[in-house]
């Protein structure tokens, strides 16, 4: 059948024609605003970030220490049991070098982002963050890194209270 069909439907238009208003369109920007309840686990996590610390939850059944923290262990399906501080150091599990900003703008100086397995959390438990004070050529898998915090007065209780992770002195 596929071979028998001569013309497939669809009327293509050029992006440039859309940009220049040559194709009639209706424009809209929705108002879609939210104030998400942060909840038990993440409220504490954000509060501790403001204090310059990273906190995790531990499940006593499987023994895992979980960041970001949650009030449930997804593998054992039970409540997690206790709060545990983990270190603000860790190793690079994987990284990428971005020439694209979040809004798809082209960057001259790339942003380096990584998954960082935190010391004190269970094996493989990491968080996402930026790397800084490092040349892109110097980043390596397994590299030791350490959080660079904003000064206490600038912290707001957000993941951005950590500016980035930089190579740790060995």
């Amino acid at each position, binding site marked *: 059948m596929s071979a028998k069909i001569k013309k497939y439907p669809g009327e293509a238009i050029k992006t440039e024609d859309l940009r220049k208003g040559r194709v009639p369109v*209706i424009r809209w*920007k929705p108002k879609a*605003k939210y104030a998400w*309840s942060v909840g038990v686990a993440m409220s504490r996590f954000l509060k501790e970030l403001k204090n310059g610390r990273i906190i995790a939850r531990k499940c006593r059944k499987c023994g895992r220490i979980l960041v970001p923290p949650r009030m449930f262990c997804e593998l054992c399906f039970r409540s997690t049991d206790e709060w545990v501080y983990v270190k603000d150091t860790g190793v690079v599990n994987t990284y990428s070098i971005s020439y694209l900003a979040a809004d798809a703008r082209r960057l001259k100086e790339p942003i380096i982002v990584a998954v960082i397995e935190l010391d004190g959390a269970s094996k493989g438990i990491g968080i996402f963050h930026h790397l800084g004070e490092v040349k892109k050529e110097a980043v390596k898998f397994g590299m030791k890194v350490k959080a660079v915090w904003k000064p206490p007065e600038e912290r707001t209780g957000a993941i951005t209270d950590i500016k980035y992770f930089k190579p740790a002195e060995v």
Partner: protein
Amino acid sequence: MSLEKIGDPHKTKHWMGHMECDYSYTHGIAGEKFFKELKENARIMGTKCKKCGFIYVLPRLFCERCFERLDEWVEASKRGEVHTYTVAHIDVDGNKLKEPIIWAMVKIDKVHGGMVHRLGEVDPKDVKIGMRVEAVFKDKKERTGSMLDIKYFKPVG
């Protein structure tokens, strides 16, 4: 359930955010012709299904009932009757409107369907289901090819 809860109301925390992108919707195949006629000639166009005879206003590319492709265009009347109406007293933010808005489903004469639009030049108390109304267009130079090219429907004798 969680082994810990938040008991102190000061400790409940919210995180603000949004999902607001810009959108640009093409009129589509049927819509493009409809809006062109509305804008340039102040005509209300519909499409007719050859199979079931249904005349769609607003026009469609296809018959939703029998799935025929609709390529027969017909000009519809500017007049119709109020099939149902409502008087809105609040705006989208829930604030009381100074002037209430009268919304109506207007069944256009001799076709199926019609338009959901505003009524004008009438007091809310005088609106009745079954009332005859007519589309009032903006001036040609103000028309942009949108539903707003019709200002509202007004009563006719």
